[in-house]
């Protein structure tokens, strides 16, 4: 019985300073099986994986109870290196790659091939010379296995995120004794075509007998590739069953514990402004020099009170548009917001003209990660508009607290209170804080970039509903940039598809799939060559 499984977790429980985060979790994975691990943010997936990898966080907080068995034998990992030796690999959500190294160096990191030298014979193995040729050959093999056609000596710095994901996979499959590979939200940062490619890579790995634990929010992907699944909710296993015996609706229900409807009701659509409505944002000839997301001449007219979607594949420039308007990346061209011209070179100019921006880079740009929730919510308003300042320009803590509390309630930010550090929140709740900060500015135009990256369905739905409500009730103009087409189609009035740095077409959400596909792949035909 026990030999049958690569990995067995038996009755794993773990608590952080008295708060149970995992309660008697058991699961087992067979060789070559794709096993989905599903759960909302904060359900305990990450903690479970930290236990599996013997991360130091676990030991430092009092260890765990229960057993981890690898190939039927109990394993006690004290560091990720132990797990690595036992044949367990992980593809991380936050990339564990070294930007300054080449792809080869990244794939071989810590496991370099070496040749003996005279010095190494005398002083020991660590002075062996790197065997660059063999390393490159191995890397090439791993890259070929996942269908990556990239020069292996390219530096990782500046690669599109999708490529980084594949480099991580290549690094893991290069490990000779790899038995089990964990994918943590691998498709969260990928475009649809890249995600598809990733799924087929997973399939081919599983054909080779490598077991896969697939952690994701995208249920359609689970249905497509996984054989069995476990749903975690609040640290408990709520269901464990073969995929064949379930469907998307059921999984989603199990995960959230309540029925999932469409993201937004159809009624809200009727509020969309007609063609004669006032133009809120006029973009002409916009060029943005953002590495990996270059914008090469974009013209857009966005109507007042519209929810305007910008979609497209990763690396094509959709993310560059908001970053250019906000002055985050060098830009040229003209952008008029309600008739006022935005000066790109003046950082914060867009902010002062009533534009709020929720960045796709939550941790880097969006949040002051070491500060409190309350401080994050009011910071921009305080610096841009001098809000929340009392007598003598000193922060009025009373106002701040009250406002933060109202925002926390409004957006259902799950936290202890306004003074909790933002860094300790889950991704979805961090995103809500970003949104709260943007709304506190009382913008006329709200730009949200990748609002649902790495967050669960519950939070996603809440954010989408709230955005629509803002538009319907307050007439806010919203630009939403997202890689998830389904999401754009469910809330936007019109969707611009960006390809090769230009708008290839602007479509209504109900346009047929084929139209969107064609618009996105305007470059596709060239890439295939």
């Amino acid at each position: 019985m026990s030999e049958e499984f690569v990995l067995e977790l038996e009755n794993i429980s773990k608590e952080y300073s008295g708060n149970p985060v995992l309660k008697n979790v058991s699961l087992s994975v067979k060789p070559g099986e794709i096993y989905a691990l599903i759960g909302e943010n904060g359900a305990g997936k990450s903690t479970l994986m930290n236990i599996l990898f013997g991360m130091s966080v676990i030991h430092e907080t009092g260890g765990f109870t229960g057993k981890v068995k690898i190939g039927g034998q109990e394993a006690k990992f004290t560091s990720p290196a132990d797990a690595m030796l036992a044949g367990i690999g992980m593809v991380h959500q936050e990339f564990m790659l070294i930007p300054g190294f080449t792809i080869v160096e990244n794939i071989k990191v810590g496991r370099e091939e070496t040749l003996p030298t005279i010095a190494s014979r005398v002083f020991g193995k660590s002075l062996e010379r790197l065997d660059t040729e063999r390393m490159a050959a191995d890397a090439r093999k791993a890259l070929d296995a996942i269908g990556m056609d990239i020069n292996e000596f390219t530096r990782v710095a500046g690669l599109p995120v999708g490529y980084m994901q594949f480099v991580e996979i290549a690094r893991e499959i290069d490990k000779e004794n790899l038995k089990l590979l964990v994918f943590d939200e691998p498709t969260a940062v990928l475009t649809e075509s890249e995600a598809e490619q990733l799924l087929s890579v997973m399939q081919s790995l599983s054909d080779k007998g490598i077991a896969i634990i697939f952690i994701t929010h995208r249920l359609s992907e689970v249905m497509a590739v996984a054989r069995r699944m476990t749903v975690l909710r609040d640290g408990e296993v709520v269901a464990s069953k073969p995929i064949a015996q379930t469907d998307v609706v059921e999984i989603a229900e199990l995960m959230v514990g309540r029925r999932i409807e469409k993201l937004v009701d159809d009624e809200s659509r009727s509020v969309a402004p007609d063609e004669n409505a006032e133009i809120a944002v006029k973009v002409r000839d916009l060029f943005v020099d953002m590495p990996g997301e270059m914008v090469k001449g974009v013209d857009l007219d966005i109507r007042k009170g519209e929810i305007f979607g910008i979609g497209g594949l990763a690396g094509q420039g959709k993310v560059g548009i908001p970053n250019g308007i906000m002055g985050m990346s060098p830009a040229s061209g003209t952008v008029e917001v309600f008739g006022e011209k935005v000066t790109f070179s003046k950082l914060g100019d867009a902010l002062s003209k009533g534009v709020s921006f929720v960045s796709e880079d939550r941790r880097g740009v969006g949040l002051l990660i070491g500060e409190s929730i309350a401080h994050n919510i009011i910071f921009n308003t305080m610096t841009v508009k001098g809000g929340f300042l009392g007598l003598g320009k000193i922060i009025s803590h009373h106002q701040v607290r009250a406002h933060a509390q109202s925002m926390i309630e409004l957006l259902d930010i799950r936290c202890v209170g306004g003074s909790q550090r933002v860094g300790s929140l889950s991704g979805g709740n961090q995103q809500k804080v970003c949104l709260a900060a943007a709304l506190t500015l009382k913008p006329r135009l709200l730009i949200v970039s990748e609002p649902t990256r790495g967050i669960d369905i519950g939070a996603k739905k809440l954010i989408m509903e709230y955005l629509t409500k803002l538009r319907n009730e307050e007439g806010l103009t919203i630009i939403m940039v997202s890689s998830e087409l389904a999401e754009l189609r469910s809330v936007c009035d019109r969707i611009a598809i960006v390809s090769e740095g230009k708008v290839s077409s602007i479509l209504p959400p109900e346009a047929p799939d084929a139209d969107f596909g064609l618009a996105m792949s305007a470059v596709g035909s060239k890439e295939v060559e």
Partner: protein
Amino acid sequence: MSILNKVGKYLAKNNVTVLFVILCLLAYHYSTFTLPTLFEELFIRIGRNTFLVLSLLIPIIAGLGLNFGIVIGAIAAQIAIFVVVLFGGSGFTGILWAVAICTPLAVFFGYLVGSLFNKMKGTEMIGGLVAGFFSDGIYQFIFLFMLGGVIVVNAPDLMIATGVGVRNIINLDGNLRQAIDNMPMINIIDAAFYAITAICAILIIFRLAKKRDLQIKKLLKAFLPVAILWAASWIPAVGAFMSAPRLLLLYAIEFGVAGAVIYQLWKIFASKVLDKNPELPKMRLVYMGVAGGVYAITFIPAMYEALSMVNLPVLTYLIIAALYMFIPWFMNTKLGQDMRTVGQDRAVATSSGINVNKVRIIAMIMSTVLASYGQIISLQNIGTVATYGSHIAVGLYSIAALLVGGASVQRATTKQAVLGIVLFHTMFILSANAGAQLLGNAQIGEFFRVFAAYGVIAVALAMHAWSRRKGGQTLGLPAATVVVPAKPPESGSK
């Protein structure tokens, strides 16, 4: 436009170095120095300081920043020199004794500093600075009080008249002074010949015993050039030339040029005649052209005069060259790659099974040991040890020199180190004189000198920070241009 743009970007990227080239030219213009005197002074200082500056590179690569802790290595060297002088060691043997004594000390100190740095990751530079001051305190306690006060030292020449504490000057005349610098070439070649003979013999015996391939060809490649040089030294004229303690820079350049041309000709011959390679070896011709150009420069009267003034200490420069070549070689070993990984990202290093703390300690030990050797080289050249002063400024001046060469807290190369030493010491030599000439006051000239050293560090750090902030947005790699798009794998395609 685009060329101008490129030049502008290049200059902006190397802004610190460009600024100091301009300052050096200005200082030279205003000073009364002539080229020969400048060269003479400069090459003394290059020999003195380069090893120390190179000892800074490994910690930078391993992500520990600028190692202000090399002061501690210098202290180890001074303890060793004191002991050697106390027991009457002299000449090159004395130097070897000093090395033997300071190595274990420096390893121990390096271990301590490394362990300290592991507890204060991210603030190593401040830590190194303070650790330097702290160790200076202990050093003073030992040298001013313990020696003579607790430990009886019977050496009136070395001790203060009261018998407690070491004098503030240790004179190396007649024992260690220039013991490395004055080593004649002929002795070096003899030693090299015996060493390579011994190594080859050991390797052959070892390989015979283990029944491995002998690789005679490879051994001969290393052995023959040394043997030929050694044989040549028996020719009386050559022998007499080689017995001189120093080598004229002019000759050094001529030999270098001749050597390079011969090497390139041999390679061309090998590829054309032996391997029958039809391609024209363009790069080799270019190298030969460059060598010719360098040779041509020596015919400029001013240069000729300057170059004939400078006597190079041969062994010192050879040791520096060896370290210069060792660092890139070392970075290409497993341990070196581990250090680069740790320097780039500790989290990634940990998760790929690298013992981050151990690697950082090894880097610190290497840096401290190299710094102690560097201090021995420096002190034997100067000829006196300022017991309570020689080590103080070591960290400061070496770091200033490295920064001038265009290195930063995160990145440094051997080339930057050498360029930095040349620029910094040119500035250092000229600034006092130029300041005195400009302002008509010798005292103010001295202020210029101090300003040069401290100013360099402040300006360089500020300019690096500035170009990093600017570069972060505009100089980013245009990823899409170098990347070939991925294709779906065969096995998964529909």
